[in-house]
């Protein structure tokens, strides 16, 4: 039950994009088409989960042990950057088609602050997460990111066909849409 709540909370209630403002850049950058949004979601779920596991272990068994918590930001970001490289290399070999589709977005994940943000949140002392909890937290957060991204991509594809006023076309209307989506997601608040 505790895990279910954690999952629901991370996906819906505290949606990483719509409530916490993390990962906004890819949210706007990779949301023009549902298909690419789905691909990006896959990549983020993968990177975010692994990154969180690795950084969690690093925090508990290196930084905390040696009392050098101040190295957190620097080590975390390096780990995430190298992980992305690794994913890129693996993807290139395993699924060239997917690589083709995601190639340009993968480097974006490095600067997807949601990945670093979740890694940092997962080791926050007041959460006191276990490794399993951290993993679930990261994965659910990534799914929440994907959910928001895919819904948003659908809405934007829909708007491609709509008659948006000149001044609102493109970025402005995308923000308004995101705002209204966030408004709708407020309905989930308090579920716990």
């Amino acid at each position, binding site marked *: 039950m505790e895990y279910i709540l954690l999952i629901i909370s991370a996906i819906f209630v505290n949606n990483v994009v719509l409530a916490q403002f993390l990962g906004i850049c890819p949210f706007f950058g990779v949301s023009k088409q549902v298909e690419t949004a789905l691909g990006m979601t896959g990549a983020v779920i993968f990177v975010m989960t692994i990154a969180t596991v690795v950084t969690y272990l690093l925090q508990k068994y290196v930084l905390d042990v040696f009392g*050098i918590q*101040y*190295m957190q930001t*620097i080590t975390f970001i390096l780990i995430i950057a190298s992980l992305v490289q690794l994913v890129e290399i693996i993807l290139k070999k395993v699924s060239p088609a997917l690589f083709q589709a995601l190639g340009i977005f993968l480097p974006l994940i490095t600067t997807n602050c949601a990945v670093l943000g979740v890694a940092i949140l997962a080791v926050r002392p*007041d959460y006191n997460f276990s490794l399993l909890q951290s993993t679930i937290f990261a994965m659910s957060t990534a799914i929440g990111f994907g959910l928001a991204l895919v819904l948003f991509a659908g809405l934007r594809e829909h708007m491609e066909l709509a008659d948006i006023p000149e001044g609102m076309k493109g970025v402005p209307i995308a923000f308004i849409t995101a705002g209204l989506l966030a408004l709708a997601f407020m309905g989930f*608040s*308090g579920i*716990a």
Partner: protein
Amino acid sequence: MASKTKSTFVNMVVVLFVISALASTALAFVYQATKEPIAKAKLEIKKKAIAQVVPEFDTSYNPIENMFKIALAEGDSLECYPTKKGGDFSGYAIKANTNKGFAGEFWIMVGFTPDGKIYNTAVLEHHETPGLGDKMQKSKSNWSEQFTNLDVPNIKDIDGDGILIEVKKDQGTVDAITAATISSRAFCDACERAYTAFKKIKK
């Protein structure tokens, strides 16, 4: 213009290593330099909170150094900061948490006078909804003033559930923040937990 270092393997490793080493050194230095102020800043916050919730006390007896923990249940304990005036205990600042908040756990400091009255309260950390739940902060509204000088031992437990500090909706005496009953209820819960801890000290 100096020529660019070539991307040979040795160069790369050396450069990265040097940069990382420099960065760590710089950080270690800054960390050392800020360690004291950070600790002080944190202490300051705590001191301020304690001073807010208990009557004036003698600075000769440091409540932070004399902090002790009171266990409420297995793995659940609260910190208590006792203060003295003229040699006697004059107040107890208890740092209490609750997980019944609207947005998860929050922390408040509750000060008791030795006779069990709440002297005052202060919010330490919270994630309640801005504009609603955050009205429990003194800076946002005067809602929490109803806890000032609250004579807890003399509250009648109307519904007989053993809980004294409750909002009116739960047959208690506290007016809830409008449209933020959950936060109000959680605040009461934190106070109740602090009071339970206080009673244990008295024993």
